[in-house]
């Protein structure tokens, strides 16, 4: 039983850290609160879908920015979509870079756009790793016979 408590504490600490470091915001909390016995995998499914969509968008953006003649409207539409989905998940650091990205897009500043693409890729990989770790911890708690201490 001791290890369950330990794992739960680890999970709580890790989650707290993700909020403190600004990886997640209250929207993520809201989603966790929507999860119950009838849909125990809602957040994992949602985030998995977000990963798939974001990877497609990031690949599109990389291609868009390599074109000899840059279509800023297309880039803006892609960034806009990423901003919308990241804010709906509560992945706020990705969302924040998207805001800067759109401003560079409006200015038609190619270097700014390239810089933001790099930043958004970095933030995306970081939060992806963090969320995967979080879900793994949740699985460990469940496997040890504990329950997930949400909402915190």
């Amino acid at each position, binding site marked *: 039983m001791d290890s369950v408590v330990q794992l739960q504490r680890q999970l709580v600490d890790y989650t707290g850290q993700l909020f403190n470091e600004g990886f997640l915001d209250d*929207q993520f909390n*809201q*989603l966790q609160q*929507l999860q119950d016995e009838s*849909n125990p995998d*809602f957040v994992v*499914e*949602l985030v998995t*879908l*977000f990963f798939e*969509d974001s990877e497609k968008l990031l690949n599109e953006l990389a291609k868009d920015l390599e074109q000899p003649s840059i279509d800023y409207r297309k880039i803006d*539409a892609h960034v*806009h*979509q990423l*901003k*919308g*989905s990241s*804010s*709906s*998940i*509560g992945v706020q650091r990705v969302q924040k870079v998207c805001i800067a990205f759109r401003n560079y897009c409006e200015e038609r500043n190619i270097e700014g756009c390239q810089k933001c693409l790099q930043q958004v890729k970095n933030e995306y990989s970081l939060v992806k790793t963090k969320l995967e770790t979080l879900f793994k911890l949740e699985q460990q708690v469940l496997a040890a016979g504990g329950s997930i201490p949400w909402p915190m």
Partner: protein
Amino acid sequence: MAGEEENNNCGENSFSVLVVDNDTVIRMVHRMLMTSLGLKVQEAKNGKEVVDLYINGASFDLILMDMEMPIMNGPAATRELRAMGVKSIIIGVTSHTSESIHKDFIEAGLNHCVAKPITIAKIDSFLPKSNNN
């Protein structure tokens, strides 16, 4: 116009919501939010699908309408629905925070416009529960 949804005592279950967004992640979040309130939810991926649903006789109490979508965007769909005489509550949902963009969308015929991410609190007054008092 609001007459129908005021007799909510016969249950929130009959209150139907159409979630409109081209982004699957957002549709999933909005569906979940509405389902958690016990509301009946259907989805559409763009404005054209919404117009087609109404043409085919479907009707919803509330439409959560995204702004930027391929094929037909939110403002265009809202205008078309209003021109068809559709009286459903339509709430525009957009990632834009600019007042003037919200205003343009509202002028297309919305009841209300909110910035993403949508929360229950933001649209509370349009949901059946809050009519109780």
